[in-house]
């Protein structure tokens, strides 16, 4: 019960920390205006079709263009949206009652056949949407029972189904447009959302305009009819120096992912609104390669690393203490975080212990150059990252203390994925953010230790799989949290990852932006009820 109490208090803390919003309840919302949001160009999506786009920025835009069957509200709770559902006692059969008043942007009415067309699209083996397919789970069949009734049958229980339905990966697109545009659909995306695609210039911006007919917002939003804004423009800016100051120009109303070094400039500036949100999730962890390709295959070396890396120092030196130190397989704000499965509890900072472990493993500095050797090979390890290389540089300095040389390799995403597939890394960046702890399965279950899977360490363990399977099959929150805590413990016991820090999202807004709220679901926001006070 003590553990559960800890979970609950963390959950409460999460809710409090994430309830970040800009609300002026005293004022009457105004219609009109174009909201411009500047986002990190490094995250620019290739496609606006979230059924196919693997990155969250693509889901975010999709999510404004299309509605989902379910909706995750500002408190992180899953609510019905395009459909209500009921589940059979064995958890295998789901019946969806589809809304009858929804019309896609091209005039096609929503019905069960339209939803089925979307399921068919992502379940089609010839259509490469593995992430969406994975998240939707082991679906056996999808049948239209009536014009507005759909039945989905699973081969085994899939507890994360409503989570998949509520986040960006499964927007419901117009079946007419899917048919009409075929392969070109990702450029033309047609949904039923509060905004419609107006212009997309890759490398520059995406422009959305208001859907004037929108009248099916989720009831939890507290606003009906069309969106307040006439339109939204997303601009992609890669240069941190530009992103850090662009809010001072007419080019932006909101900057998402403000670089950390600019936080002090805006935090206390009354001319701007500064927000900080932290998502539940893994933190920026670096998983360790346990295969024979790496010196980290020896658990003593991995444990020596964990005794040495100081997460608080990374946060302080790298981010001025503005980020959140992460000590385990999930960050401390994640519901189900198990503080007993953390580096502070299991690997308290101790260089002597770390040195002894390396010596025991046969790594000794024989030539007094500060780097340990064994069988004529230096203890040099590669630290792969796709951003935030500063973490690698700090870790490199920390591990130098115990005679390990770390080479930081900042690489593009595709190179990271290739190295992960081929297991040619030592430390590899990997992160997931979101409200559903089910993502632990992606990183640590042996099912995903296959080409294309997210489990990259090469470590498999039936006991770990057993706890992770609970996350797949059980909808009981207490049971899920307990299983998550046990899995976290096994991950740390086997020293499979280096926890570092969790990255908050820093936002800076012009004061005319009203009612902007970031949600608990990763870095999501809804713009439907945002308005500009002009």
């Amino acid at each position: 019960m003590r553990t559960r109490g800890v979970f609950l208090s963390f959950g409460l803390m999460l809710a409090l920390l994430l309830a970040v919003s800009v609300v002026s309840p005293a004022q009457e919302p105004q219609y009109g205006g174009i909201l411009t949001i500047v986002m990190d160009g490094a995250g620019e999506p290739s496609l606006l079709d979230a059924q196919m786009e693997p990155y969250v920025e693509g889901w975010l835009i999709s999510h404004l263009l299309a509605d989902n069957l379910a909706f995750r509200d500002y408190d992180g709770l899953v609510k019905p949206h395009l459909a209500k559902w009921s589940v059979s006692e064995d958890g295998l059969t789901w019946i969806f009652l589809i809304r009858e008043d929804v019309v896609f942007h091209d005039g096609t009415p929503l019905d069960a056949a339209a939803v089925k067309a979307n399921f068919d699209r992502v379940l089609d083996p010839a259509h490469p949407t593995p992430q969406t397919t994975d998240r939707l789970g082991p679906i056996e069949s999808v049948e239209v029972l009536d014009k507005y009734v759909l039945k989905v049958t699973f081969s085994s229980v899939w507890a994360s189904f409503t989570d998949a339905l509520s986040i960006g990966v499964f927007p419901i697109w117009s079946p007419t447009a899917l048919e009409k545009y075929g392969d070109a659909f990702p450029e033309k995306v047609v949904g039923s959302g509060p905004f419609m695609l107006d212009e997309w210039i890759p490398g520059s911006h995406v422009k959305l305009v208001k859907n004037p007919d929108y009248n099916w917002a989720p009831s939890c939003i507290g606003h009906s009819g069309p969106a307040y804004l006439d339109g939204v423009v997303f601009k992609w800016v890669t240069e941190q120096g530009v992103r850090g100051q662009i809010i001072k120009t007419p080019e932006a109303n909101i900057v998402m992912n403000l670089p950390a070094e600019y936080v002090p400039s805006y935090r206390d500036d009354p001319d701007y609104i500064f927000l900080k949100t932290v998502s539940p999730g893994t933190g920026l962890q670096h998983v360790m390669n346990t295969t024979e390709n790496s010196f980290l295959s020896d658990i003593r070396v991995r444990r020596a690393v964990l005794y040495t890396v100081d997460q608080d120092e990374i946060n302080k030196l790298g981010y001025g203490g503005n980020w959140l130190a992460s000590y385990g397989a999930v960050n401390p704000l994640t519901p189900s975080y198990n503080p007993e499965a953390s580096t502070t509890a299991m690997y308290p900072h101790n260089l002597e212990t770390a040195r002894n472990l390396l010596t025991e493993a046969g790594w000794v500095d024989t030539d007094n150059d500060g780097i340990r050797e064994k069988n004529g090979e230096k203890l040099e390890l590669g630290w792969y990252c796709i951003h935030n290389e500063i973490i690698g540089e700090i870790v490199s300095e920390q591990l130098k203390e115990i005679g390990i040389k770390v080479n930081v390799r900042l690489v593009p995403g595709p190179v990271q994925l290739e190295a992960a597939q081929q297991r040619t890394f030592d430390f590899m960046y990997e992160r997931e953010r979101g409200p559903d702890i089910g993502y632990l399965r992606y990183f640590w279950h042996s099912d995903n230790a296959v080409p294309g899977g997210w489990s990259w360490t090469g470590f498999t363990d039936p006991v770990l799989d057993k706890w992770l399977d609970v996350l797949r099959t059980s909808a009981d929150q207490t049971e899920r949290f307990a299983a998550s805590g046990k899995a976290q413990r096994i991950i740390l016991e086997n020293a499979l990852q280096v926890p570092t820090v969790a990255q908050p999202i820093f936002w800076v807004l012009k004061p005319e932006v009203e009612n902007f709220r970031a949600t608990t679901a990763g870095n999501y926001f809804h713009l439907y009820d945002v308005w500009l006070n002009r």
Partner: protein
Amino acid sequence: MRSVTVVDVLHMPKYIINRFIQMIPVLFLVATIVFILMRVVPGDPAILMLSGQGAISPEMVAELHQQLGLDRPLIAQYLSFIGNALKGDFGSSNRLKASVVRVLLRVLPYTVALSVAGMIVSVVLGVPLGILSALYRGTWFDSLFMVVAMFGVSVPLFWFGLTLILVFSFMLGWLPPISAGILRLQSLALPALTLGFSQAGLIARLTRSSMLETLRQDYVTTARSKGLAERVVVMRHALRNALIPVVTVIGLQLGSMFAGAAVTETVFSRPGLGRTIVSAVVWKDYPLVQGAVLFAAVGFIVMNFLVDLVYAWLDPRIKYT
């Protein structure tokens, strides 16, 4: 000054045809090299397309190989690529799920506008700077200009671009820090200045040395001895000849800007061919890389062709044959 004669005009079509015929082996070679290079680089585009999204089965990879035509022998892939390219069909981008031609045509106006604007900046700055430096050779004025030119050649583009943004966008608020429009002057000004400034340094140094050499020629001495004003001697007699090597470099630079402006494009968040190629290479997007490199090669060749035409205007001794 010799004007273009009827004989020249009659020779022009033949010359143009010859040049176009010369283009064919060059483009063929470029296409072959880019095709081979992309296949030599390790990594499977199909795995990359599916990676990071979820577990991939060998069947999924095989299916995608078939869809992309990667299951066929290399020679068959090559012949298809060449055959389709001759018809102007470069296939679809693996990553963007759109026709390569459509992707390229979407970014091409941005690239052409930036390249031309950058070149205008470099010529407007570089040529006068080079002439003045030559005319005032050895003075403090010459030294100062050459220091500026050296600065232009050596300064990193991204640093210079960011400095311009800091001054003109954030401090003075005159110009936008990002470049969204194709031809909007406000939008083009800073990226064109960034791109043009580095080229201006090279042009200034080249103009200066070429001008100094020309000013030493006998015909310039003759012109001066006739009592012509120095301005006339410089502008009418010396400059045209001095500009011939400069025009060659301008042509080459303009061609290279087509695909080489990726840094400037990134700093100013501007779409363009350079960024498109870099991104496509990283994602091993074979069709897009192949199409984009061929587009860039055509741009380069056309620029050189135009330069050759300008030669004849500058130097009457050059004929189109």
